């Protein structure tokens, strides 16, 4: 029995390494995305968006008391997910004769595409899209002019988890709000998110402690430092050294996840049960 183009595209995405593949319609995305940030602002005539989601971080990354070890294990994803998007774009062009391209960079919200493709819903933790089974995901996106059947948004919200609703009713907080009150605030009402606020400008100093931003900011600090010995200490010290290292290797993602460390959805998704024990074949 022959499968549909949607099934074939999803199968290829999974074969290339995605845990989940979803399809969103550009029409749905454009109801929310502002002008200049829509799929068809990038690829003329775009009709569909294919989203690849992967739990690229090994689960063991969360099982370390050393937060730097955790961050190091979360920094491998960007090239990997773009590779899937790239290969599927070529597949669509070769097999179906429709234009396709990879949406990489800051002009299109991958979170919005993922929501519209039914891969998860926004959470109290910075509006990060959480999936009920996979928890925190990284996204890759292919745009195409090919009209594909969209999966559509999920009917039910993933966040808050029932245990968070209980904690909210008892203590007026949740794990994420308690873990990072500087970045996050919000309220739960009738088991759903009533409102939330995300201070991205604070989060950026944590989620991208070593990044182009911190490189620029620290460099400016050094240039403005009149004492040559202090200036030397800033430029040649361990912190700026690690910033330069990160920027030079382009590994600037995933440097914080403290709001999600105790999130019950994420905890469940990263928990393994051994499938083998000593003595088994």
């Amino acid at each position: 029995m022959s499968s549909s183009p949607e099934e074939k595209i999803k199968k290829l995405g999974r074969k290339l390494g995605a845990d989940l593949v979803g399809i969103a319609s550009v029409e749905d995305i454009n109801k929310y995305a502002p002008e200049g940030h829509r799929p068809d602002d990038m690829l003329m005539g775009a009709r569909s968006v294919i989203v690849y989601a992967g739990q690229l971080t090994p689960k063991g990354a969360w099982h370390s008391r050393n937060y730097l070890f955790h961050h190091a294990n979360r920094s491998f994803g960007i090239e990997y997910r773009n590779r899937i998007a790239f290969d599927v774009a070529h597949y669509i062009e070769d097999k179906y004769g429709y234009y396709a391209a990879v949406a990489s960079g800051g002009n299109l919200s991958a979170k919005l595409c993922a929501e519209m493709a039914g891969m998860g819903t926004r959470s109290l933790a910075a509006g990060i899209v959480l999936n009920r089974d996979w928890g925190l995901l990284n996204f890759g996106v292919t745009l195409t002019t090919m009209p594909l059947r969209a999966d559509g948004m999920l009917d039910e919200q993933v966040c808050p988890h029932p245990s968070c609703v209980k904690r909210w009713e008892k203590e007026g907080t949740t794990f994420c709000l308690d873990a990072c009150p500087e970045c996050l605030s919000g309220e739960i009402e009738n088991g759903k998110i009533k409102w939330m606020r995300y201070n991205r400008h604070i989060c950026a100093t944590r989620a991208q402690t070593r990044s182009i931003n911190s490189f620029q900011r620290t460099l400016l600090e050094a240039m403005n430092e009149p004492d040559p010995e202090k200036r030397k200490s800033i430029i040649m010290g361990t912190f700026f050294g690690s910033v330069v290292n990160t920027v030079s290797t382009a590994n600037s993602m995933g440097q914080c996840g403290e709001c999600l460390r105790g999130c019950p959805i994420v905890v469940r998704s990263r928990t393994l049960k051994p499938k083998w024990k000593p003595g088994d074949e």
Partner: protein
Amino acid sequence: MGRYISPEIYNKYKQQVLEMSLAVQNYVGIEQQRDESCLTDTEIAGKIGLNTAQVREIRTIAFNDLHPADMWLASDEEKRRKCQRYFSKK
């Protein structure tokens, strides 16, 4: 030298541009609110009478300029503390 925004224009608009940008994100339910903030550079430009390129320059500089350089360094200690707190509670 690339694009350059004058200190006068930068200082006059930096706070306003940041508040209207994605630096602070408000949601009702799970829907991002885009009346006062979470606006694009072009939308901000239209509201405050600058052009898109000027707003983009102001936003990019102001986002880095908002916090002292030490805050990035302090973030390391903050994350270490939060990670330790999580495991100490387990």
